Structure formats: C-alpha cells, structure tokens
C-alpha cells in the first residue's frame, strides 16, 4: 500500500499514549471541516486540517455561465462578505471588456465593500467569542451586525448575498437620504464596537488565555504565505488597499493596523481595529463622493472578451488578499476562472501553530486564523 490515501485513512504507527481526535465535521468547534488532532495528554502532537466538505465547484460552474450570470453564484463562498468576494471578478471583467466605471459608482463600491467587511468581521468575532466560552461576545456582535445589514438592505435590497456589484458599476444608485442614515448608523456602530474592549479585549482571563499561544513569527508568516489580518498581526505591514489601491482607495486615507506579537490575541484584535478603520473609510467616502451622476455603464446583453486574454485582479477582503484570475477566449463565458482566497492560505499555518499547544487552545488558535471554511473550499 504505497498509494496516497486521503487524510485520516493513511496507515499510521500506533502509539499507546497518543489519542486521535476527529474534531469535525460534526463538532461545535470546527465549522464545515475536520481537524484531525493527535493528543498526548493535554498536548497536541500533530494536527491535520482536512477541508473540502463544502466544495461546490464555483470555478467550474463559472465556465458555463456568461459574465453577468456568474455574479449571483460567485458571491456564495462568503455570503456575509459578498461584495468583497465579487470585487476582483468585477474589476477583472471590466478590464477585459475595457470599461471605465463612473466616479460615483467607485465610491459606492468602496462603501459597500467596507460595510461588508464589518459585517463579516462581526460574524467572525461572534464565533471567536463563543469558541472561547464567552456567550455575551457571541450575542453582542451578532446583534450589532444588524445595523450594517440594514444599511446594505437599503442599498441592495437583500440582507446577505447582495449581488450588487456588476461589471460597469453597481446595480442601483443609493437610495435618497442615504448619506445621513449611513453616517448615523456607522457612528453608532463604531461607538458600540469600542465598548467590546471592556467586556472582551481587556478581559484579564481572555488576555491570559490567548496571549503567547499559537505564536506565528514574522518570518514564518511570510514563508507560509499567510495574508490579511494574520499577516498584519505578525508585524508585516501589508494591506492591498494601501499597497495596490484599486478603485478610489488611493484618494482615501487608509491606515493599516499592525501588531508585532503574532499570537492569538493579536490576530483577534487586528480585525477589530480594522472595523474602526472601515468606519473611518466610510465617513471619508461619504464626504468625497460626487453627489449625483451615473453609477453604471450600460453593457451589451452578452458581453464578450477581446480574443484570448487573461487578467488577474486582487482586493483586500475580510480574510486577506482575494484574487481572481479570469482567462477569456472571446466567448460569452470565461474560459477559466480561478479564485485565490485568503482563507485557504491562512489555514496552511494551522498545523505549525497547533503543534505543542494545549488542547484548550485549539479553538482560539484555529479561529484566530480568520478562516472561513466555505471560502476555502469554493
């Protein structure tokens, strides 16, 4: 038996001291995936993440649909962050078709994208809270998230899966009187998330539990190819909104949050700081946005690429760099579509971080990687 077997089925040497735990796929602390953990007493000796339980073939599906009908299903991997998931695809198609987007549409996109980043991060934070046994931190973000979901519903008509970004702009203009409502809700939201410090981020038990656990050094973070908040928590100042600004990000003052520790605590704090930064960006965008004008360039019914052409675009999503590679052969549907997602790149670090940790640290280290199983499987 030399054939490669899937994880969990491979023949292993049996050690009486080692116990193998299947954490997932039906486990309250795993998400839609399995982590095969081998423990010696309370210490983890080996860990083998096994994603793939929610693979839906989004990339293959995209080859059978034209550029417009791809939109509603390409946002499925992360329905809370659907604007950011669509963003690189829309940017890429625009470059393929050679469309120039109206100025107002670019600002609307930035606002939607930042609102979605906050909505996703609140959901992630809620689960991080319950993974640490902090039930209040599960309920508060899940409730405060509604403020921003209401805003997105006003913009696009749907609470999640907005399908709002289209090649050539956004689907609809902002509703009347939106700027005031948005400013009010975002200001209240920012005030609310600052209160989380008292109950969660400054909690001595939380700090003593997550500090110095699962430390990812700066070199390892770069070597393993992690991205987003995980990379920034390890001391690497890398934010695509700053480094490769797309749409109107270069006109806005974007500040990226960097922490040097690289432990679970830093990895959980960076997204929280990012949410405040998102509130800043939304306020700036609301101020600088042209007050009127078109938000969409009318396309032909079935747009086609110009001959054999390929384009790669990437944006900073809630989980880090999110890239989309589109290859066109001049037909109405893409020849090949490949998504490079931050979740999968962050998951690679998990076996390195969990080795030698205690079993009690597993949920906090695992979820601090800002990993979304459905996005990783696509």
């Amino acid at each position: 038996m030399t054939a490669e077997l899937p994880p969990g089925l491979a023949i292993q040497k049996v050690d009486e001291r080692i116990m193998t735990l299947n954490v997932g796929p039906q486990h309250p602390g795993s998400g839609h995936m399995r982590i095969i953990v081998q423990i010696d007493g309370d210490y983890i000796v080996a860990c083998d993440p096994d994603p793939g339980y929610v693979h839906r073939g989004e990339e293959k599906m995209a080859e059978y649909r034209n550029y417009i009908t791809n939109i509603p299903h390409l946002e499925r991997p992360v329905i809370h962050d659907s604007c950011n998931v669509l963003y690189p695809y829309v940017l890429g198609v625009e470059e393929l078709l050679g469309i120039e987007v109206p100025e107002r549409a670019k600002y609307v996109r930035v606002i939607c994208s930042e609102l979605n980043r906050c909505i996703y991060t609140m959901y992630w934070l809620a689960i991080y809270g319950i993974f640490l046994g902090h039930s209040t931190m599960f309920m508060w973000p899940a409730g405060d998230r509604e403020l921003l979901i209401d805003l997105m519903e006003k913009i696009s008509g749907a609470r999640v899966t907005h399908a709002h970004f289209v090649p050539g702009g956004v689907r609809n203009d902002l509703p009347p009187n939106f700027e005031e409502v948005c400013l009010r809700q975002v200001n209240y939201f920012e005030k609310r998330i600052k209160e989380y410090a008292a109950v969660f981020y400054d909690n001595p038990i939380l700090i003593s539990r997550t500090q110095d656990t699962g430390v990812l050094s700066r070199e390892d973070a770069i070597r393993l190819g992690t991205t987003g908040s995980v990379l920034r928590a390890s001391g690497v100042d890398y934010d695509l909104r700053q480094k490769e600004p797309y749409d109107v990000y270069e006109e806005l003052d974007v500040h990226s949050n960097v922490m040097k520790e690289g432990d679970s605590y830093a990895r959980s704090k960076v997204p929280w700081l990012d949410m405040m930064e998102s509130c800043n960006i939304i306020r700036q965008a609301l101020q600088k946005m042209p007050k009127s004008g078109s938000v969409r360039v009318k396309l032909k019914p079935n747009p086609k690429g110009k001959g054999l052409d390929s384009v790669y675009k990437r944006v900073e999503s809630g989980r880090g760099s999110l890239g989309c590679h589109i290859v066109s052969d001049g037909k109405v549907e893409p020849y090949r579509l490949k998504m490079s997602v931050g979740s999968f790149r962050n998951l690679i670090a998990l076996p390195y971080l969990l080795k030698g940790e205690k079993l009690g640290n597993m949920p906090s280290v695992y979820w601090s990687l800002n990993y979304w199983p459905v996005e990783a499987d696509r």
Partner: protein
Amino acid sequence: MSVIAPNFKLSGFIKSIIDDVVWFLLIFSLIGFPVIMMVLFFIPMPVIDGELLTPFLAFTYLADPTRTLPIVQAFMTTDMFKVMAFPGFGFAALLAAGTIFVERKMLAKLQLRVGPFYCGKVEGILQLAGDGLKLISKEIIIPAKADKPIFWAAPVLFVASAAAFVALIPVAPGWVVADVDMGLLAVFAVIGFFPIVTILSAWSANSKFPFIGGIRALFQMVSFEIPLILSLLGVVMVTGTLNLSEIAASQSSFPWIVFLPVGAIVFFITMLAELERIPFDLPEAESEIVAGWLTELSGMMYGLVQLGTYLKLYAFAALFVVLFLGGWNGPMIVPPFPMDLATEGIELGPVTAKIGGLEPILSQVITQEMLNGTLMFVLKTVGVIFFILLPRGVFPRIRIDMLLSLGWTKLIGLAFVNIFIALALVYAGVLGPGGLQ
C-alpha cells in the same frame, strides 16, 4: 421588544383564564360530580361518631377546618414531608427551577436578547416545563460499546448525591431533613462523591470526548476540594462545632463573613469550580470537547444530570449562606399572624370570620420564626445564586493548566491565611469561648 412581542393583552390573558375555569367547573359539575356520587352510592360507608358517613357528610368534613387542619399538621411533621417537600427535595427543586428561569432571562437581558418569551404567555415562564417534556419524550440512545449498567446508573446516582447534599442544609430553626452532628463532615463526604459519579459516567460511555471531559472534571473537582475544605475550617474553629444548624444559630448577631472574608472568597471561587460554572466549565467546554462528559447522555438521562447540577448549585449557595451569611438569621419582617382569627374570630362588618383548629398548627409548625427564617434564607440564597450566575455573561472559559495552578497554589495559600486569621481571632479572645460568642 415591540417588534417581536405578539399582541399580548392583559385583559385577553385574564379572559382566557376565566374561560378555562368556567369550562372546568362546567365539565366537573355536569360529568365529574354525578360520577363521584354514583360511585359513592355503591360503596358501604363507615360510621364515624355514631353517624353514617354519607357523601354529603364527607364533604362537610372536608370543609370543616377543625377536622382537616390536624391532618395537615400531622402530615407536615412527618419525615416524609420533610424529605419530599419543605426543606428537602421539593423546595430545592422549586428554587432550582426558578434559578434556571432567572438565569436564562438575566443572561438574555445582559446579552441584549429577549430570552424565553412565548411559552406560558407571560415572559416564557413555562419554558422549563416545555423543555422537561421534550427531554422526557426523547429517545434514550446508549452507545453500543458503553458499559450499560454503570452508564444507566450514573445520572441517577448524580441526582441522588445532589439530593443527599440538599438534605443536610438547615433552612429554618429545626427545619432540616438530616440534623447530623457531623454535618459539615457529611457535606465533605457528599462533595467527594461527585467526581466518582462523573468519572463513572464518562468512562462507561466508552467514547473519546466524554473521557477527556471526565478526566478534566476529576482533575478540577479533586484539586479544588482541598481549598474548599480548608476554607471552611475557619468557621469550624470559631464556632467549635460541625453541626450546620448550630453554625447557623451561632451567627445571630453577625455573620462570619465579617470576620472571615478571605475564607468566604476562597469558598466562593472553589464553589464555582465544583459547580462547573463559567469560567470553570472546562468539563463541558463546548468548542473543545463537544459537551464533555455529558456528550453521550441523551433524553431524560441528560435531564436528570441537569436537575442534579442545579440542585447542587442550590445546595452550594445554601451552604455559603449557612456558613458565612448567617443562615436564617435576620430582621423579623414577617408580621405576626392575626391569632384572633383562630381563637375569637374577627368581625368583618356583619360577618364574624373564624377558623377553628388553626391555633396548634400556627404555634407548633408554621410559626412566625419559621416563616421569617425561611424568607431570610431564601433571600440570601437567591443573592448568592445571582452572583454564581453572573460570571457566565462576563468571563470566557479558562484553561486547565491555569485552573490547576490557581487551585493548588493561590487558593490553598489563601485558605491557610484564612485559618491563621481564625486562629488569631480565637486566641485574641475576640471570638470563641469568652469572646463575642
């Protein structure tokens, strides 16, 4: 609230209750009453006081308090009543049920939720009954490789241990199920039984997550039992007795928490750990080991363990009240019963209200002291339970190594500090023989 609340109207609620009562009376008078009469017609009746006991006479006896109240009094002084109802299981279960309801509503308010809302129309007050019915109606699934007799016995043993703990708690002067001279020692013995039941249940399930949970529970309970016992020694030193009733009675002028605050704090923290409450809920840590040692329990077996857990919670809170907060002692706030009602009668306009036979039951069983003591005890216990519930909304779970280092170093050290304080107070003559007590 206003978004979620159904169209609840108090008038409609009262109307539905009146409807229910009217229907009950109608059905009873039309069907139930004639059936009872017909059955009684064929049963030969005994002769009491030279009178034939006809059904009408039986109803007259029932309505006559001079005949029924002595029966009630005789029943209330039996051991059966003590075990089943008042200071024992029924009283504790009632408080435990109230605790579950308050916990859910309080936690919901803390987390900006509504909590149980629909069941029972008023603030979800019947939610617990609904949950209990659901648990009873569920299928009990036993793992194929489980050690079945032990697996079956463990939840029952757990409830039995918790009930034994409850039996040792004095609620009011003279109202205790088991008035043992070595009461505190018996408490330690009962507490020592919980880890055994837990590990039996966990190991017999023959499954990985219960096994890890059981080992964690064993570590936690055994290592926190030592500071628990040490923290209570201070009270024993200053009172010179192990009898819980005497310890409660000795605090008539001031509670021991005034002199032994360190012991009270240590006991409170170890209590949280023994009860597996957050932040010490490692044996049931959901995100790590599913439900810990409860993972394989299903249906009413799980319900029994939950019942035992909340009985234990009540018993620990009550123990804290008895040892540190003065038990039933407190200001007399219950007004005396209008004894004229029993002896001479009270004139209410044209009618004179008099209930004969009430006097012995009021002077011997339900005295003013007993009512006041129970009220004080319940108020204090509810306060302690509130502080046991509160950390659940505030703290995350801690890790097993942090827990063990806390138990074996800091808490044991503080418990010794408490013992030295108690010794100093006794030798200085402030407390103990010749002192304040």
